[in-house]
């Protein structure tokens, strides 16, 4: 119930940000459509710990800036590879062991890997991730281990 | 200056379109189309600023949504051959 209520509040917040018109009629439409979406989501049975991951809380706000910096660094590396006249790539497929317990944690880890250019998650089986990388240096383990640790911390809520 | 930004975006759209025309596999074309869609979102946003009408941003949000759903739908059609079925009946039941 807490989840459903907070989902509704979040949806209404997005409505307020997107509409920009604050008359009683339009605010009423906003409340109505938020409630309708929450009811549909409850009927679809997606209002659970995965659909509305409230327990992640403010730790996400600490993770996102780190991820953005990592993305910037990886982008510069890939840009240099593309602009290099000889195109020095050596594609490789590797398998990683993810240390997250829940599916949500694994999904965050896999998507973070895909978001940083140079590495793509091509498959997930249990806790094993299959990763396609542009060069050897992209998967030498240092960044991935740190990302793995950070996502696990994010998931467990320490 | 916004004109220069729009021109840069259109240049990279042309490059993406070139890849879509060259192929060679159907996945390259889907990839190019997805990129083209992202650049369209940005072009709409920049044109909104160029025109002094930031309301265009709502169109950009809707375009980003449609681009994503369209890409997923096309890929699912290739993989399963049908938009109605689940791609993996064993996993999707939970």
């Amino acid at each position: 119930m807490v989840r459903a209520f907070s989902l509704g509040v979040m949806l209404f917040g997005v409505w307020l940000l997107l509409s920009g018109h604050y008359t009683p009629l339009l605010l009423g439409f906003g409340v109505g459509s938020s409630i309708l979406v929450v009811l549909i989501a409850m009927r679809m049975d997606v209002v659970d710990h995965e659909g509305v991951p409230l327990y992640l809380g403010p730790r996400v706000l600490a993770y996102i800036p780190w991820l953005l910096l990592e993305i910037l660094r990886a982008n510069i590396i890939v840009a240099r590879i593309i602009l290099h006249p000889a195109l020095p790539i050596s594609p490789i497929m590797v398998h990683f062991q993810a240390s997250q317990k829940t599916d949500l944690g694994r999904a965050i880890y896999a998507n973070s890997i895909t978001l940083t250019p140079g590495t793509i998650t091509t498959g997930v089986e249990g806790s094993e991730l299959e990763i396609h990388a542009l060069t050897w240096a992209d998967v030498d383990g240092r960044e991935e281990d740190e990302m793995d640790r950070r996502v696990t911390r994010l998931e467990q809520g320490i | 200056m916004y004109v220069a930004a729009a021109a840069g975006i259109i240049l990279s759209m042309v490059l993406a379109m070139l890849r879509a025309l060259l192929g060679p596999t159907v996945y390259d074309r889907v990839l190019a189309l997805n990129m083209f869609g992202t650049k369209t979102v940005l072009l709409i946003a920049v044109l909104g600023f160029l025109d002094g009408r930031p309301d265009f941003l709502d169109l950009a949000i809707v375009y980003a949504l449609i681009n994503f759903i369209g890409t997923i739908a096309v890929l699912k059609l290739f993989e399963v051959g049908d938009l109605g079925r689940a791609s993996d009946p064993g996993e999707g039941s939970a």
Partner: protein
Amino acid sequence: MELVLDILSWAAIVGGLFFMVVGAVGVLRMPDVYTRLHAAGMTDTMGAGLILIGLTLQAGPTLVAVRLMLVWAFLLFTNPISTHALARAALSGGVRPFRVDMKGEQP
């Protein structure tokens, strides 16, 4: 202050255009679909991100800025999903990765 914001925002937009054009060039230069995905990811994350940040700095603290950041958040959420779906579809469609040194077993 106005001038500083202007310079920052145009620097961000020019940087975004740079990453976007380089990503598009990469998509043309790379040898197969998996390596092209890396280049495409570059335009979607950094290219789009820097351009939207630049536009946000131009917009100032208004609802427009919130919407621009919402567009970026949306792109960051959807891009890995479509990239992953594309890579998986290509793998199951039988496209062999270009010159891959297999470390473990064959995919």
